[in-house]
């Protein structure tokens, strides 16, 4: 049986054009930009409240999401992220890229990669809450609307990434 090769990724400028138009559409329709980390925070606080309600209710930051009986999941960010799963899935299938894989360099084990993924994900979650947003909510959305703090955030992300890259090179190269 002939195995079909996955299609190449798009030109970064074409993909960037599409992404920029979606971001613009988000501002024109919803009045806010795109985001990702906020949706995960909202999901986690909802689960956490179901398990340890007293903890969440005594934490002003987390409880703000429930203020006046609000449902943290009834938020556009949550639905954007659900849409991202669908859109990425459709694009991957259409391009013949849909497969089970662990992206890593050759000099690290799968278990090691998972451990680093967990540590990195934890740091990203902490960083995103401190900065009030992640690569999407701050860098992309705040970058387009020329928010000063979002530009500072963007340079800090690349600064942190380049500074740490050397120490973690075995995982990727």
């Amino acid at each position: 049986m002939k195995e079909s090769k996955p299609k190449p990724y798009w030109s970064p400028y074409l993909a960037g054009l599409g992404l920029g138009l979606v971001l613009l559409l988000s501002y024109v329709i919803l009045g806010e930009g795109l985001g990702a980390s906020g949706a995960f925070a909202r999901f986690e606080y909802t689960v956490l409240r179901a398990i340890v309600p007293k903890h969440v209710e005594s934490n002003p930051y987390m409880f703000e999401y429930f203020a006046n009986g609000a449902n943290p999941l009834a938020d556009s960010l949550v639905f954007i992220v659900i849409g991202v799963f669908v859109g990425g899935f459709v694009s991957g299938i259409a391009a013949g890229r849909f497969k089970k894989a662990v992206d890593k360099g050759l000099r690290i084990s799968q278990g090691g990669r998972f451990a680093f993924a967990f540590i990195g994900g934890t740091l990203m979650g902490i960083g995103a809450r401190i900065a009030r947003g992640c690569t999407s909510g701050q860098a992309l959305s705040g970058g387009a609307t020329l928010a000063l703090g979002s530009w500072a955030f963007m340079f800090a992300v690349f600064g942190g990434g380049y500074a740490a890259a050397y120490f973690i090179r075995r995982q990727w190269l």
Partner: protein
Amino acid sequence: MSFPLGPSGAFSANTGLLLAFFIGIGFGFFLEKAGFSNARKLTAQFYFRDFAVLKVMFTAIVVAGLGFWFLVGVGVLDLSSTYINPTFLLPQIMGGLILGIGFVIGGY
């Protein structure tokens, strides 16, 4: 009709969530097309091997930024009912550094 549509009351909250879902589909579609579902491609920028991430991000920022400020400039888009990220420089720099370190460790 005035923009942004949602804050001007053009549709209900539930319709807004449905529209957000469709916008998310577009977001995910172009992210995947750009190769952002591949951790090695994402982290390659930190080793000066593949600058697709920077190219995609800055193209998107320029396209959305030009459109956004043009629509604000000609009075179509009402800036006061649009969410602009507030500035908290120290937390944004500290959070960005931590997130950047996490990015290259975690890969996404």
